[in-house]
């Protein structure tokens, strides 16, 4: 990005919303506050969709395991990599009296011992030990392994499906997203900086806040406002947005004129001499260059690009920027609370100056999350009054329109195939 960038004319195209064949009607707010909708969403979306849970790098070798929660369904999931490198998820529940098996979040183990009565399982889910087995009544060890959960992987992402027999394969669920994001070379995938927060807002309010840029000049003027908007595009209109089945990809404007402000002395130091750069990047330049060469990163090849949000239905954003990628998980906890996890991936620094820039980035990300945390709580408070039945969405809020429309469609569909049609 530099002064030679060609002029930007977002008025030359039609609206993204209409070009994608989406309705332009207002979107109902009931799904953002209703207890009965919340229950349907849990049963018809989170218990039927393939859910992205982890990256394979979290399970680096045979014997690695992680434990992840699906909070709306109250399911604790134990995901293991066995000696044959098979990644498999199980209910983290002992077959004896149903106790939670392991309380650790990650590690390396060949076997899992329930702390209650020491029933022991292999990392392939087989029950291999029952203390005082002779005192039981014909207990069949072969039938008492851990209960498996349907598991599959795509491009290094681990998915589960809580249906005992998933209605559709992961491939069918991913649809056009499968090829759109194929062969990404994710930089720093083994080294995420991880933030979590409990938020006083419906999970969709939070996801919505992270998929539109219309709010950025208003809510984030100090932290990232000048990165996403300029006189050329004062309201941070989107560069592009496309639906990919229930998933979608949204490409955001970046301010090509953005330069470091000399009053931000610490930031200048990190860039050693004031070399301009985005405040939302913190990565090894060569690896980042390989990453952004992918056609689905900055899909319109714009000189005015800041980042892309790739929404993996229902609740994951895989975001791509000039410095690499990061993910947001939005988990429902109740109709008006949610659990957020942000994973910001970066190559471990090779120099202190590189590490210093990462610390700048981490400090800024924390404040951006804090700005959003306050904003989503205020949004939820307004929604919960019941004074409004619909929200009015503009073209830059394409992402909200598509994701909420898809959630409603899944809730109203009797089969997954119907929801995907």
């Amino acid at each position, binding site marked *: 990005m530099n002064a030679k960038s060609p002029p930007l004319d977002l008025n030359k195209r039609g609206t993204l919303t209409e070009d994608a064949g989406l309705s332009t009607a207002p979107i109902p707010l009931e799904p953002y506050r209703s207890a009965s909708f919340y229950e349907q969403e849990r049963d018809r979306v989170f218990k039927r969709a393939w859910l992205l849970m982890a990256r394979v790098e979290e399970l680096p070798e045979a014997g690695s395991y992680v434990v992840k929660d699906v909070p709306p369904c109250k399911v604790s999931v134990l995901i293991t990599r066995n000696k044959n490198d098979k990644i498999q998820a199980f209910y983290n529940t002992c077959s004896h009296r149903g106790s939670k098996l392991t309380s650790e979040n990650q590690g390396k183990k060949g076997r899992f011992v329930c702390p209650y009565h020491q029933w022991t399982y292999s990392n392939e889910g087989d029950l291999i030990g029952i203390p005082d087995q002779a005192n039981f009544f014909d207990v069949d060890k072969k039938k008492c392994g851990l209960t498996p959960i349907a598991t599959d992987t795509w491009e290094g992402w681990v998915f589960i499906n809580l249906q005992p027999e998933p209605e559709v394969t992961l491939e069918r669920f991913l649809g056009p997203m499968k090829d759109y994001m194929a062969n990404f070379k994710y930089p720093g995938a083994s*080294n*995420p*900086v*991880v*933030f*979590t*927060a*409990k938020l006083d807002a419906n999970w969709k309010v939070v996801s919505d806040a992270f998929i539109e840029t219309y709010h950025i000049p208003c809510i984030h003027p*100090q*932290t990232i406002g000048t990165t996403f908007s300029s006189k050329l595009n004062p309201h941070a209109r989107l560069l592009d947005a496309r639906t990919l089945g229930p998933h979608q990809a949204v490409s955001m404007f970046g301010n090509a004129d953005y330069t470091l402000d000399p*009053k*931000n*002395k*610490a*930031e200048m*130091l*990190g860039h050693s001499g004031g070399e301009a750069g985005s405040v939302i990047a913190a990565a090894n330049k060569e690896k980042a260059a390989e990453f952004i060469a992918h056609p689905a990163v900055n899909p319109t090849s714009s000189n005015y690009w800041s980042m892309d949000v790739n929404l993996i239905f229902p609740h994951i954003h895989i975001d791509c920027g000039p410095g690499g990628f990061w993910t947001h998980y939005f988990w429902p906890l109740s109709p008006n609370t949610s659990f957020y996890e942000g994973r910001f991936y*970066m190559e*471990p*620094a*090779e*120099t*202190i*100056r590189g*590490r*210093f820039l*990462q*610390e*700048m980035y*981490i*400090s*800024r990300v*924390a*404040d951006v*999350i*804090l*700005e959003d*945390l*306050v904003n989503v709580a205020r949004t939820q408070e307004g929604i919960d009054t019941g004074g409004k039945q619909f929200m009015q969405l503009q073209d830059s809020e394409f992402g909200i329109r598509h994701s909420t429309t898809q959630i409603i469609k899944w809730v109203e569909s009797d089969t997954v195939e119907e929801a995907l049609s």
Partner: protein
Amino acid sequence: MTIKATTKLLPDGYEALEPYVAKWAKDSSAERMTERATSSMEDIQAFYDAILPLADEAMNLIDNYPIDDMPEDIACLCKLVLALPQVAMAVELHGQPRLPNTPYPHGIELLRGTPPFG
């Protein structure tokens, strides 16, 4: 990481930063975040004013050592340098320790950082 024991807290030429070691030389990003959020603006400004003019030279010095194998005094200086981004958010962006109009404690947790001293 192995940290070789040294007799001095900080390398030669950085004695002026010694009064700030106890408060600002933290092992992780999460601790630095908490320290900034719970400090007075006077303390933040004093540390910022002390470290800023020395940070560039300090980084040149630190880069003479392997990033995963620093002597103790260099590691201590490194931790101080890594506290500058946090205090800079307060001094350069907000003019106060925390982001304006936000609650504290806020429930945001930094669970995992990036090495070294993340």
